[in-house]
């Protein structure tokens, strides 16, 4: 688990241990590159997370892992920073650029979107495998990816995108080969979240 000064890493660490992972919380690039799977958590502001990530060479670590097909899982703002950019309160910040799209304020009556919501998982999803369609996950965020139309490609398998709804639709999770991410907090989503983490460990990390 990449430690770059963003929030409560302990919850995610404990939740991963609960489903059988051996977890090291580290800011060391060597350890982050060598791990079987790398979790990138994140809470708070996009710009602050991106700055913290850059401080530990996070974008390059993620890039190098993906080049080698080594799994990376982003959680919450750790998912958001994988996109092209973020716009918070008029401030534009470049993200890691792994996926096209902009993280911006969701249009909803009540924000933050805080609580347990359902997601529409794509068919063929690994992360949501074994979970009913009405399963709920814990979200806490005001910003999200509101539009994404993965480009059709004859050679590349397009990312699998799960959506959630609060005021409007936004991306709830992405599965894209070695790179996966959730907007919700699997580590705070009780047994449902444990299933998502277990699926990731078993079928993505292997």
């Amino acid at each position: 688990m990449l430690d770059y000064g963003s929030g409560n890493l302990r919850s995610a660490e404990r939740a991963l241990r609960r489903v059988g992972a051996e977890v090291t919380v580290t800011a060391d690039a060597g350890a982050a590159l060598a791990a079987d799977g790398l979790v990138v958590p994140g809470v708070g502001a996009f710009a602050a997370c991106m700055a913290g990530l850059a401080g530990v060479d996070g974008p390059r670590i993620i890039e190098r892992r993906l080049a080698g097909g080594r799994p990376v899982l982003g959680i919450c703002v750790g998912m958001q920073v994988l996109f092209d950019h973020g716009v918070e309160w008029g401030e534009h910040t470049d993200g890691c650029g792994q996926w096209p799209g902009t993280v911006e304020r969701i249009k909803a009556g009540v924000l933050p979107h805080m609580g347990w919501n359902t997601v529409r998982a794509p068919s063929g999803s690994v992360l949501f495998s074994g979970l009913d369609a009405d399963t709920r996950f814990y979200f806490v965020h005001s910003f999200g990816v509101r539009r994404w139309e993965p480009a059709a490609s004859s050679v590349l398998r397009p990312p699998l995108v799960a959506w959630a709804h609060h005021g409007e639709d936004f991306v709830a999770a992405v599965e894209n080969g070695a790179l996966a991410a959730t907007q919700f907090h699997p580590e705070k989503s009780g047994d449902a979240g444990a299933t998502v983490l277990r699926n990731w460990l078993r079928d993505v990390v292997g």
Partner: protein
Amino acid sequence: MGVAVRVIPCLDVDAGRVVKGVNFRELRDAGDPVEMAAVYDAEGADELTFLDVTASSGERETMYDVVRRTAEQVFIPLTVGGGVRSCDDVDTLLRSGADKVSINTAAIARPELLGEAARRFGSQCIVLSVDARRVTGGAPTPSGFEVTTHGGRRGTGIDAIEWAARGQELGVGEILLNSMDADGTRAGFDLEMIERVRTVVDVPVIASGGAGKVEDFVPAVRAGADAVLAASVFHFGVLRIGEVKDALRAGGVEVR
């Protein structure tokens, strides 16, 4: 489908022990907050709130330990409040495993604390806890509701509805609205107070104070609550989490 209304049991914790509470059949020790938290989690609580009512500041360390041990085994969000005076207190609670921290009296004395905490840790983990009552006698506030301290015994003259709005302006991500008039009466939530706060903020509002029977919860949601919190009815086993959710579901409210 949308986000579910959250049902939140609150545990009053004094020097590491649950204040009041009865022995549920499945409990070995009703006074252990960690064990109680696990029971509520198993019963379907959507979040947990610990309120540290410890009088002496020397016991703070005990609370941090309770939070640590709870977060070790409960995988739903945990909010901790009571006696939070500074950003350092918030930091220690978050590091111990709290997901959100609620601030009450210290913000009345120094509102900037809310902004400082929200900027440093993110709005999503800072909750403004408002203990409010209807003004009876004395100088009225514009809305007729005022902020209190000392468990509702002391008025501050601050308008409770304006204070909630101010909290949002300063950056808090949620309002925990406690009706001190309704608290402990089991006569239902103060619906007008919920409605008034709902009209001035667009962060989530947690309604607290007055829950006595399953029928009390749907009106609180209709009045605008995004979450409902209760302490004694759950402690004493008067209501179970599942019953409350069934009643909400029957009233057309989405629950988990």
